């Protein structure tokens, strides 16, 4: 459930439609500014209660990678 809510938020942050925000959605950090990054960190913290290291976050090539990173952090916490 929280993953679905998170994806809606991520769509808002990246200013794309929520229908486009699937696991296949490509994350192109090259187009992110620092505010986008901060907003994403905040949304992850809000939905899952975990923080993700910036280097690992910016290494995510797709939403699937990002969700796997979050799941990994949740399993550790």
């Amino acid at each position, binding site marked *: 459930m929280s993953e679905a809510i998170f994806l809606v938020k991520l769509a808002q942050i990246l200013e794309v439609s929520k229908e486009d925000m699937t696991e296949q959605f490509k994350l192109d950090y090259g187009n992110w500014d*620092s505010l986008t990054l*901060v907003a994403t*960190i905040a949304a992850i913290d809000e939905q899952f209660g975990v923080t993700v290291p*910036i280097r690992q976050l910016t290494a995510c090539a797709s939403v699937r990678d990002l969700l796997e990173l979050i799941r990994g952090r949740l399993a550790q916490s």
Partner: protein
Amino acid sequence: MSTAKAAIKAISFYLPPGKLTNEQLAQEFGDWDAEKILAKTGIAVRSIAAADECASDLGVAAATQLFGSGACSNREIDFLLFCTQSPDHFAPATACLIQDRLKLRTDCGAIDFNLGCSGFVYGLTLAKSLIETSTATNVLLITAETLSKFINLKDRSVRTIFSDGAAATLVSSVDSDDELIGPFVFGTDGSGGQDVIIPAGGLRRPLTPESEIEKEDHSGNWRSERNFYMNGPEVFNFALQTVPRALDQLLRKCGLRMDEIDYFILHQANRFMLDRLRDKLKIPSDKFWIDLEMYGNTSSSTIPIALRVARETGAIKAGDKVAIIGFGVGYSWAAAIVHII
């Protein structure tokens, strides 16, 4: 047993008259509008020191107001603590120059210490230690910063947030059964030193023609090695992890529950971060200070400015137990309980 305890007796603050508004920023940066800047940062106006206005000048102005308020006379101060990261010179200590300008006694101790957003809380622990060991009776703690002098005009990541300013806090010895400042918790993690830094201009990297070269970063902001740099996302992560832990340690140390703390004043970094921290810490909004609109992020002075304004507006009152938390450059952080008298 009633013994000499340190307490915050009075606070004054001073902001230089030069201002930078969201409208000016929106005009300069084109693709941002003033409302968006206000919504993200919570800041409408920043104060900017003039070219000939240094941290000492702001500190002297704040302290002059403090003495003018009748809280105490300049001749009663027996120790001056000056917190800045923008000193007038490498040497002498700016505190020595301020002693002379404020006409403090020559048997007054005076030292500088270099911290940013955690600096006020560290200053309080130094003041308390001086007073409760009977080394001093009236400690003047001045926090003052002119970060704008290090900020590149084409770096909106920090220009939108930081503001120049100073606060003068009188910490005095009073007879009390209870501890009025403290307990404290502290923290340091120098592995984050590169995340908030002015790389060149010290002795590790002296100023050279190379350190003046401006480069564009990933987000379209420009800066040189002599400019102030902040890695916003890393600092945000640091705050999300560190502030809840520090508050938890503080509550354990003082044996109080969250609901027994009357008010929470965190370093006023920016609205976005404070909103997230308040939500994470589950603090009701009527017990949590967010007021950056007219002040901006003045680094070490945000907490004393907040304490003064919160007292004036009635948000905090005599007898309240207030949790204060400073965090930032270093990384350095500290939290404390302050009893309002």
